[in-house]
């Protein structure tokens, strides 16, 4: 069984490399042989610009400082949003009165994308860091809340009955059955929330900033520098991917009892 997973993982990695390579090949061909070349740079130019940007600064900083700045904005408020989301989601999922109070409001707020809050965020928190933090928080909070809620709701009544029978108090049922049972759902939410928070950084840095991966995209738009736009896009993609991998590894370590393959 272990051999099988190892083999399938190997296959998966090979397939990933091939698919990315073919994609780049098509992109290269399209920009070389068609008029698409006038509209956007080829992958060779984009990727070499990306690697060059580690040494040659874009604006004030090289690319890794931009990435650092974006991460500093995302990670702490992603964590704050996630914790708040887990608490609200689980209590809403398990305690009916909590759901009765918060769920209607939450369901109305949920479909609103974080960027729709930009004007209000600016009024509330100014154009400094506060409004960016607020958007990241929202992106994390909404996704984690809804998943934690689903997790607590899906608690197996047989397990609740059986811990009741073994003499568990309501609080023990909550901590020993509801909470651990929700963990896979919470992680699914954390995963979605992480990409969503990271994606929101572009919008957050549109508000006003002088550094960050979002800033690279906005400023390159202003100067019509499509190579730098793609450098920003590649940076966002790669960092987002690495964050997702880290998250998955954390889950694999913390939640040994369930093997999800996504």
């Amino acid at each position, binding site marked *: 069984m272990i051999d099988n997973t190892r083999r399938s993982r190997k296959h998966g990695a090979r397939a990933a490399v091939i698919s990315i390579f073919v994609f780049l090949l098509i992109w290269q061909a399209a920009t070389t042989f068609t008029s698409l070349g006038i509209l956007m740079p080829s992958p060779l130019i984009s990727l070499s610009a990306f690697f060059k940007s580690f040494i040659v600064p874009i604006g004030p900083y090289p690319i890794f400082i931009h990435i650092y700045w974006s991460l500093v904005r995302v990670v702490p408020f992603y964590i704050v949003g996630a914790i708040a989301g887990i608490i609200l989601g689980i209590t809403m999922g398990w305690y009916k009165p909590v759901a009765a109070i918060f769920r209607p409001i939450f369901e109305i707020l949920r479909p609103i994308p974080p960027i729709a809050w930009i004007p209000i965020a600016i009024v509330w928190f100014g154009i400094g860091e506060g409004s960016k933090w607020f958007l990241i928080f929202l992106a994390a909070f909404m996704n984690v809340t809804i998943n934690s809620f689903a997790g607590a709701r899906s608690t197996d009544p*047989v*397990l609740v*009955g*059986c*811990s*009741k*029978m*073994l*003499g*568990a108090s309501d609080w*023990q049922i909550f901590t*020993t*059955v509801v909470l*651990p*049972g929700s*963990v896979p759902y919470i992680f699914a939410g954390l995963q979605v929330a992480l990409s969503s928070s990271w994606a929101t950084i572009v919008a957050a840095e549109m508000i006003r900033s002088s550094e960050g991966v979002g800033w690279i995209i906005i400023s390159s738009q202003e100067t019509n520098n499509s190579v730098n736009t793609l450098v920003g896009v590649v940076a966002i993609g790669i960092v987002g991917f690495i964050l997702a991998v880290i998250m998955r590894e954390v889950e694999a370590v913390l*939640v*040994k*009892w*369930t*093997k999800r393959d996504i």
Partner: protein
Amino acid sequence: MDNPKVKVINLTKKFGDLLVLDDVSFEVAEKEFMCVVGPTGCGKTTFLNSLTKLYLPTSGEILVNGEPVDMKKNNISYIFQEQSTMPWLTVEENVGFGLAIKGVDAKAKREAVDEVLEIVGLNDYRKYYPNELSASMLQRVVIARAFATKPELLLMDEPYGQLDIELRFKLEDELIKLWQRTQTTVLFITHNIEEAVYLSEKILVLTNKPTKIKKIIDNHLPRPRNVVDPEFIKLRNEVTELIKWW
């Protein structure tokens, strides 16, 4: 019976107009293994659920040790038809779950867990998670968990209904071993007559709905029992005759 472990007096249960249990009275002695058999859908599960107060009986009383049953006070364990291990706990944590809930200290917990794991033969699997085990192993974990708390009364609702015959035989033998070792009072519900004759000291035969007690049969066949022994077959046929509703 002087001091019955469980005394059920005129137990009646209605769901709306539907009469499910009709004036059922019986007693279970301390350390007795009683099997309850009856036709499918005769309300066997309702019967158990009333005993644990998952359903409130419409009328009648259930006494444990001479006092009304109280799940908080009485240590009553219940084994469901459905598989009920906690997927996030290892085998040993699952088996110790009830003890952990009751706040038993680590050393006593460890000893109790070791003992029952030994009997059900899951010692080598103690660090495994449920998703790595087969259905019969999971059922063993559940049974081990119930016995680990040393319940004064153990209720089992067709625990082996989903298993194939070979595994069932094996688990039945384990169950007998656990019962003999722990001296627990067991009330075991099944629709399998052979199983009832194999396991029990006493067989409670129920009628079709509304459920009444048809007969209570003493079963003193010597152990280990043999399913092809003429005495065994005779008793099995006797119970079958009582259950026939066709």
